[in-house]
């Protein structure tokens, strides 16, 4: 496929910056940039080469070559290690672009790996979950799914499902065995097995739904009246100037997400639009989102300030979500009733911020240590959809079985088999027959 490139390291000043390339005949492609390379590159070898632009050297690089199909993507793959100055990396990207190697879209390397059958869709999804994991524990779960697919909850369900199918096959094709193996081969037993499977599917779906967070990691929402200094605090805590700060109320219009990384996991910080009655459509939407988030995060910081010393009474109830009332702009005034407030802070002077941050990080740590990620939850919405469809066909099958129409029950189950074909990977008939003959001693 057409060659693509992406920087693997972020574009900041650092000793080494890495570019990754994938595509057909990569060695020919990059030869003009690295004329000193041999004409055929060997798999898994490191080459030292100087990038040349119009006759003059640009940078000294190390090139790591993987030959198709033994690479991650299944195509030729090259990693270029260059000096990690962001301007240098950008320049190299531009030179590669000049050779017809375009910038990869997000996830495109994994996509190619999947397209070239290097990884399954399930694996690609686990990989995605792995890369975005907000904590090491989450990462481990995803990695567990990624490295050994039999750990994936979908595989467990698939396995149970195929065994059930094998039972049906046996029951229908070997009636002479019925009396013999009565204990595990009656419609009654099938009924129980179907129910158990249905239940375990529902469990996985529910568990995933429960484990599913709107934000990926321990999330703190900064909310409050307009102009109370939310964006200023957001910037201070993140030590960044991401949010726009202005003396005009109603500056922030949408949720803004920032991330602090701790050894135990990420803290996701959300800045939100100030809550007030508004006619402005965009602001209204921002306010709606802010209010909705109030109940979907793990902690809320409500920012009060001299103009609005108390939270409004329309706040939705925060069931079990830690809620802190903060007094901002303490450099200007102290509240008349300081005991009401959990923290007195100033975004301007940073007063009170260290102890606030300390508190948040403790909360985050407890969160990550108590909510160990379920290894039995699914990786994607697509997987949930697959299971829902599977459950549907299983339910149909069960209702046919209840009325004694086993042939129809099997047909309904076979639709479930197609759902799994789609969602997990094709199931060859021989797989089911293997189960039939391993489960039962059939034949005379």
């Amino acid at each position, binding site marked *: 496929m057409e060659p693509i490139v992406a920087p693997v390291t972020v574009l900041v000043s650092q000793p080494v910056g890495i570019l990754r390339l994938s595509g057909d005949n990569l060695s020919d492609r990059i030869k003009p940039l690295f004329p000193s390379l041999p004409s055929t590159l060997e798999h898994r070898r490191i080459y030292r080469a100087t990038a040349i632009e119009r006759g003059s050297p640009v940078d000294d690089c190390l090139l790591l070559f993987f030959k198709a199909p033994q690479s991650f993507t299944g195509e030729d793959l090259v990693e270029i290690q260059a000096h990690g100055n962001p301007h240098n990396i950008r320049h190299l990207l531009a030179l590669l672009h000049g050779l017809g190697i375009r910038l990869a879209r997000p996830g495109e390397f994994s996509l190619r790996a999947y397209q070239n059958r290097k990884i399954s869709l399930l694996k690609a999804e686990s990989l995605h979950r792995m890369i975005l994991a907000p904590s090491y524990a989450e990462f481990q779960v995803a990695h567990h799914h990624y490295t050994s697919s039999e750990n994936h909850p979908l595989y467990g369900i698939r396995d149970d499902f195929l065994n059930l199918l094998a039972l049906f*096959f046996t029951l*229908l094709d070997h009636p002479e*065995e019925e009396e013999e193996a009565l204990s595990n081969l009656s419609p009654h037993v099938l009924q129980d097995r179907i129910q158990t499977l249905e239940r375990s599917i529902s469990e996985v779906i529910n568990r995933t739904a429960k484990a599913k967070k709107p934000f990926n990691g321990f999330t703190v929402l900064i909310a409050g009246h307009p102009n109370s200094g939310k964006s200023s605090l957001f910037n201070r805590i993140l030590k960044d100037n991401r949010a726009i700060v202005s003396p005009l109320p109603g500056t922030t219009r949408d949720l803004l997400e920032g991330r602090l990384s701790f050894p135990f996991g990420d803290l996701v910080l959300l800045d939100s639009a100030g809550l007030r009655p508004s006619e402005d459509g965009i602001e209204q939407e921002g306010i709606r989102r802010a209010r909705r988030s109030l109940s979907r995060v793990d902690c809320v910081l409500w920012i009060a300030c001299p103009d609005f010393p108390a939270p409004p009474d329309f706040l939705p109830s925060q069931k079990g979500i830690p809620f802190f009332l903060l007094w901002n702009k303490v450099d200007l005034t102290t509240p008349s009733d300081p005991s009401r407030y959990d923290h007195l802070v100033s975004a301007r002077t940073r007063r009170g911020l260290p102890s606030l941050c300390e508190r948040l990080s403790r909360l985050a740590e407890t969160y990550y240590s108590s909510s160990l990620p379920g290894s039995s939850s699914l990786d994607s919405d697509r997987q949930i959809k697959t299971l829902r469809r599977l459950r549907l066909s299983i339910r149909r099958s069960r209702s046919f079985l209840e009325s004694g129409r086993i042939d129809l029950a099997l047909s309904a189950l076979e639709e479930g088999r197609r759902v799994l074909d789609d969602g997990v990977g094709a199931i060859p008939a021989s797989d089911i027959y293997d189960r039939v*003959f391993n489960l039962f001693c059939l*034949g005379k």
Partner: protein
Amino acid sequence: MGQTTATIFDVLVVGGGHAGIEAAYAAARMGQRTLLVTMHLDLIGQMSCNPSVGGIGKGHLVREIDAMGGAMGELADRSGIQFKMLNTRKGAAVQAIRAQCDRSRYRVEARKLLDSQPSLFLRQGETVDLGIVNGQIDHIVLQDGSRIHGRSIVLTTGTFLNGRLHVGLDATSGGRGGERATTGLSSVLSDKCGLSLGRMKTGTPPRLLGRSIAFERMVPQPGDNPVPFFSLFSPPNTLFYGGPQKPCFLTSTTDRTREVIEENLDRSPLYSGKIHGIGPRYCPSIEDKIVKFPQRATHHIFVEPEGIDVDEYYPNGISTSLPLDVQEKIVSSIPGLEQAVILRPGYAVEYDFVFPDQLDHTLRTKTLSNLFLAGQINGTTGYEEAAGQGLVAGINAALLASGRPSWAPDRQSSYLGVMVDDLVTHSVDEPYRMFTSRAENRLYIRNDNAADRLSPQALLLGLLPPQKAEEYSRRDSFHRQLRAALSSTRKEGKSLLDLLRSPDYSLALLIGEALPDHFSHVPPSWLSSLEQEVKYDGYVKISNDRWNRMDDLPIPPEILELQLPGISREVHHRLKKERPSRLSEAQSLRGITPGSIDLLRISILKFQHKNRS
């Protein structure tokens, strides 16, 4: 020997087993001058395994063969001593008939049937060579030196190719049941015909003397009443001998059986490594069962009568290749068989087969344009599977000989089609047996509607003699009339047809209550087939709709260049060659199974998904 009319035929069939019978009978019905060559004329139609026809999937095949005017259903009806409808409590789509037959009577009936065909001739002799001229078989050569010419040839040599019998550690060359083996033909097939061969094995139990068996210690297994005969065309009114059905008897192995086998495993050719062929997993030897399922305390044995004139019984379930002294110990360890006398020892047989993916959907070899293979030579087991292939090969041999276009059964509408398609697209890695679970369109291809599905095709091919054609058309017009009456008669505000769809109503009930009496004066099978058709209509439609919905996808041409997971190389190759633009088009291609259409559909969906994101 010169070329006289005695040595020139339209269709030559080699082998007089169940495949050979159907092949020769079909070709003869289609008016071809046909010769069946077999090693022993008296053994035509020999049941070399247990004396039983039908079962789940297999019984479906017999019905289909019958609907096409074939022999097996009628032969079983005319020689049957016990009949049973299986799976009666599991839904009409998976019901099938199984019959116990009188082994020698079956042979007699088979011979009578073939002898009654004016254009069919028999010849005893061993075929030792094939004469090939211009990529075609020109003639066959018999051991006595005669050359016989045919326009097309059907080989149905069963387990006789390079056959080797094992009783204990002694091995002799031979086919089943003490017959001689064909040794030379194997190398002719591989060297001259360019076909690649594999090796399989199968086995039989020892046969027992009836008067030495204590039947009172076993559980009798009676047949059904009324007798469910196979044939749709004027089935007999009684069993051939006029008497009641014969029961089978159920007993089982004991701990002692296990001990005997475990003590003597080293004397089994299976476990001492003397047998290399692949055996069927669904028909294991007793030593296999004991070794593979140690947790199982007992294994069932069905003691089946061999016939009404002989006092011989077939203990189904203890097929073995252990030496005779061990067989005796095994038998005496079984309740009811303590004193049983062995009439013939059990044995295992190893034989060559041709990997069937070297055939097309008419069972013609890809290497020689007028050579057809049918039966166990293609790696299948079972009389019914063999007969079904014999029918398909015989029809096509006749069509080829008469210069007409070929015919292949359709996977969506017959077990015959499922079998042929499975064999030629996926080949086999163990002896192939039909199962109802192999048929995706199971709800439609039922035991009760075989005639509706296949007799019209048989009529077009000229396979139904006038009297059967007439019977089929009477049945068909009866169905039309009854259906019309059902949809025009109303009860409780609904048509009877609609009521019949519900599980709460039966046709018998509706005929008794609301329809004129004359509808009940037809063969019961006519009534039940209409009833099931009405009841399954809706479900069949739903599953067809599902297929059709899937059909609509266009096939992006570039997808055929990718690897298509799960799709066999053969199918992939065919897709690349034919380049269908839509799934529906791909589905209509030869050799493309619904399974592979499904897989292709998945690949297309994934491909689209990728391109969208």
